[in-house]
């Protein structure tokens, strides 16, 4: 998320860019041919930006943006042919068509991830292509309107097309900027880096992904509509073909994925390059233009794997070190920090109730008939040997898994089978056995993502995140990139992320694992402080000594069954617990210590 000053600077940059293009079009370029190519550059940049909104930020790569582009083009062409609809109306209408197509495509396709998603997306334009061929729309031409050319966007002056395409590009840039600067973009970035963590932190990943695809589809369709007006001829191969999808992808990869200017840079360089090669070499050495274009792309990708934009940014950063992300000075913090709302005082009631929870993975009974009651304000520990089912129990509570049987109620409301983000919004925060950080975001941004669940507006989410960081003692590291933290800091950051969503119950999964003795003390102090402030905590742990000192109630799991529970000092003397941990032999030794 950018600061206000930064996003203002970006707005000025967009304005400067628009003025430069207008100057180029009206003062420099004389021939209609160059105007045509410039218009194409701008339109392809819009398509690539649309692709970037989905794929650049959320990491869900789409090989199928031609579907939206083509639907836009056909909306304009068919509208004009059959309903005499002017593009002035049908192009805005394309955004509705594209958005709806995004929803229809996203609904089944977001069940897939990674390469599977990318490959499934590939199918949509290819299938649509066949549909339009079957419908008999092999060649559509936009009828020439000699009597009212302006009404139908048929300008004699090619510069007017440049102006239209530029307007569209500026709009796409502003939308992208808005996405980047809002919780929309932050949520997508969180999804890109660690989707389960984002879901557990209260981000409704499904909703944001769908919104991103619909927005992306709408922008791409509008650009496709204008493309039809520019080209005047629409064929399925030209608008649904692989080349269109590839173009969207290549331009963004070349310029810089996940950046505002990357797709624009890609289009400004590659589109004229391809067209220039076509023009200069096409009739001399037919086919060579494709080879040169391919080689140019390979060379750039080798030299700047993340794209030109990021490469240049890194270069500038190295030569102007003062512009790097700076840690937020600790002294500046307190004035911003709102006090973290404390959970309501303990009513003594039962906050979390599990009844007869069971789940099997194939033949393995991971959990079998677990009953657990956690009272409001309790500090409960779950222990058990490896494979006892502790983390599975957490995954069931926070919604990653659905139990085969049993019911969970939280604060007297059933939460069985809710999605993790919904569970989080009800007031259950969690951390993970292996820290799931958004490693390329700053510590503060990591925690802000967690704060979205409880805060309707972005500014208060930021304040809440700062407050949560203050509470775990990590304020000094707020500006650091999460990838560079120590294990202790990562654990604290994850704790702060969970805290930022105003939980009433914290699920801590082996928060103490892998820490040195000194670090352990620090984290224990934080947990105890949270408990003293009224937070209910359920903690999984191996480290028995630490646990005995910390919690006031133990639940022991072994082979998916609950074998003992009660006060820590009683539980550690329980025969079945000793057997589970150490074996039969030790039970005998405890029974007759004299031997």
């Amino acid at each position, binding site marked *: 998320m950018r600061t206000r000053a930064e996003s203002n600077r970006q707005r000025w940059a967009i304005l400067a860019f628009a003025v430069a293009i207008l100057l180029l079009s009206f003062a420099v370029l004389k021939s209609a041919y160059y105007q045509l190519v410039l218009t194409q550059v701008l339109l392809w940049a819009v398509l690539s930006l649309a692709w970037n909104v989905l794929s650049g930020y959320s990491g869900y790569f789409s090989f199928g943006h031609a579907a939206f582009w083509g639907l836009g083009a056909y909306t304009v062409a068919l509208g004009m042919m059959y309903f005499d609809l002017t593009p002035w109306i049908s192009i805005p209408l394309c955004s509705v068509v594209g958005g709806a197509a995004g929803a229809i495509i996203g609904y089944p396709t977001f069940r897939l991830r990674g390469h599977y998603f990318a490959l499934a997306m590939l199918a949509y334009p290819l299938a649509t292509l066949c549909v339009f061929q079957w419908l008999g729309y*092999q060649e559509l031409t936009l009828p020439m309107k000699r009597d009212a050319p302006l009404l139908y966007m048929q300008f004699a002056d090619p510069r007017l097309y440049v102006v239209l395409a530029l307007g569209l590009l500026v709009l796409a840039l502003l939308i992208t900027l808005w996405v980047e600067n809002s919780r929309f973009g932050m949520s997508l970035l969180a999804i890109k880096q660690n989707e389960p963590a984002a879901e557990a932190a209260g981000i409704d990943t499904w909703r944001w992904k769908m919104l991103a695809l619909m927005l992306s589809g709408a922008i791409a369709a509008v650009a496709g509509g204008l493309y039809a007006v520019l080209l005047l001829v629409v*064929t399925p*191969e030209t608008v649904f073909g692989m080349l269109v999808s590839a173009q969207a992808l290549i331009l963004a990869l070349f310029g810089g994925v996940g950046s505002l200017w990357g797709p624009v840079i890609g289009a400004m360089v590659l589109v004229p390059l391809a067209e220039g090669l*076509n023009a200069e070499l096409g009739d001399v050495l037919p086919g060579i233009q494709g080879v040169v274009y391919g080689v140019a792309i390979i060379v750039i990708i080798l030299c700047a794997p993340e794209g030109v934009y990021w490469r240049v940014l890194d270069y500038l950063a190295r030569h102007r070190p003062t512009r790097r992300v700076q840690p937020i000075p600790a002294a500046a913090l307190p004035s911003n920090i709102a006090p973290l709302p404390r959970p309501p005082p303990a009513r003594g009631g039962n906050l979390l109730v599990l009844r007869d929870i069971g789940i099997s993975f194939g033949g393995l009974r991971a959990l079998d008939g677990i009953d657990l009651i956690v009272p409001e304000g309790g500090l409960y520990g779950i222990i058990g040997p490896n494979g006892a089912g502790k983390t599975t129990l957490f995954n069931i509570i926070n919604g990653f898994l659905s139990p085969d049987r049993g019911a969970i109620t939280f604060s007297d409301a059933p939460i069985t089978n809710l999605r993790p983000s919904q569970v989080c919004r009800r007031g259950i925060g969690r951390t993970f056995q292996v820290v799931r950080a958004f490693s390329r975001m700053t510590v503060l941004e990591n925690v802000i993502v967690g704060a979205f669940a409880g805060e309707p507006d972005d500014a208060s989410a930021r304040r809440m995140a700062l407050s949560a960081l203050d509470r775990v003692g990590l304020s000094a590291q707020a500006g650091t990139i999460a990838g560079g933290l120590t294990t202790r800091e990562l654990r604290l950051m994850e704790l702060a992320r969970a805290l930022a969503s105003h939980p009433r119950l914290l699920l801590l999964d082996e928060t103490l694992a892998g820490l040195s003795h000194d670090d352990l003390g620090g984290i224990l102090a934080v947990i105890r402080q949270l408990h003293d402030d009224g937070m209910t905590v359920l903690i999984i742990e191996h480290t028995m000594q630490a646990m005995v000192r910390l919690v006031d109630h133990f639940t022991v799991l072994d082979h998916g069954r609950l074998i003992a529970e009660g006060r820590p000092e009683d539980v550690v003397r329980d025969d079945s617990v000793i057997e589970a941990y150490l074996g039969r032999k030790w039970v005998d030794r405890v029974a007759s210590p004299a031997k």
Partner: protein
Amino acid sequence: MTSKITRRSVTAGLAMGALATPGLGIVSGRAQTKAVKMAMIAPLSGPWARQGQLLRQGAEMAIDEINQKGGIEKLGGAKFELVVGDAGDNTEKAKNAAQRLLSDQPDLIGGFGSWLSSFTLAVTEVTERAELPWLTLSYSDAITNRGFRFIFQTSPTADWQAAETLPTALKLAEAATGKRPKTIGVIQDNTASPVSFGRQLREGGGLDKAGLKPVVDQIFTPPLSDATPLVDKVRSAKPDFLLLLTSAMPDCKLVLEKLDEFKLTKGKLPLVGNGAVRLPRIVEDDRPRIA
């Protein structure tokens, strides 16, 4: 109908035809001995490159011939000059090529191309606005249905072809086999020209009028990777004759080779085709089989 007219003679004819177009009258007065520039936009790269090369060869031969004979007599011996643009493999490239040629060469007197009717449609959107006379042998109906004033189609349109071809084809088939055909097989690709041809046959009542029953009706999307399923259907349905409508040479060749492999050539199954069937390469290579 494997026409005797080769692409070469057609293009040569086109180049000559340009002289007769109305736009020229204006130019001739001041042209004197200045070269007369004629544009050709055709696919020189991509899947239709072969057709583009042939167009170009034809045009160059025709121009050489005219120039060697002393140029254009009525213009004081002015020489012809060919300006070539590559239409590439999609309509965007085709339109760009047209816009570029028009911007770079303000003194063009006319042009021709661009084989595939989609490309021709895109190119003529530019040339029509520049009021440049354009000749084409693309035969999609859309080309002349737009109300354009500067486009001249030398081939009969698809509707017309479909309407006129069948009686002739029937006569040919009758002559070859000795009896009037009752059934027909159609194999075509789904590019624009064969589709509008096929539309006239099926929906326009062309088949009904000729009293033909389609026993095989196969439409494929180019490029064809294997013609076996198509030809297998032909073999089992045994139509009295086969109509082959393909726009790209490789597809056409695949079908012909497969027909040969299935022993359906050499007079066993009369074959009537247009489009790519007329290309010299096919005619030279496959004459023994088709005959």
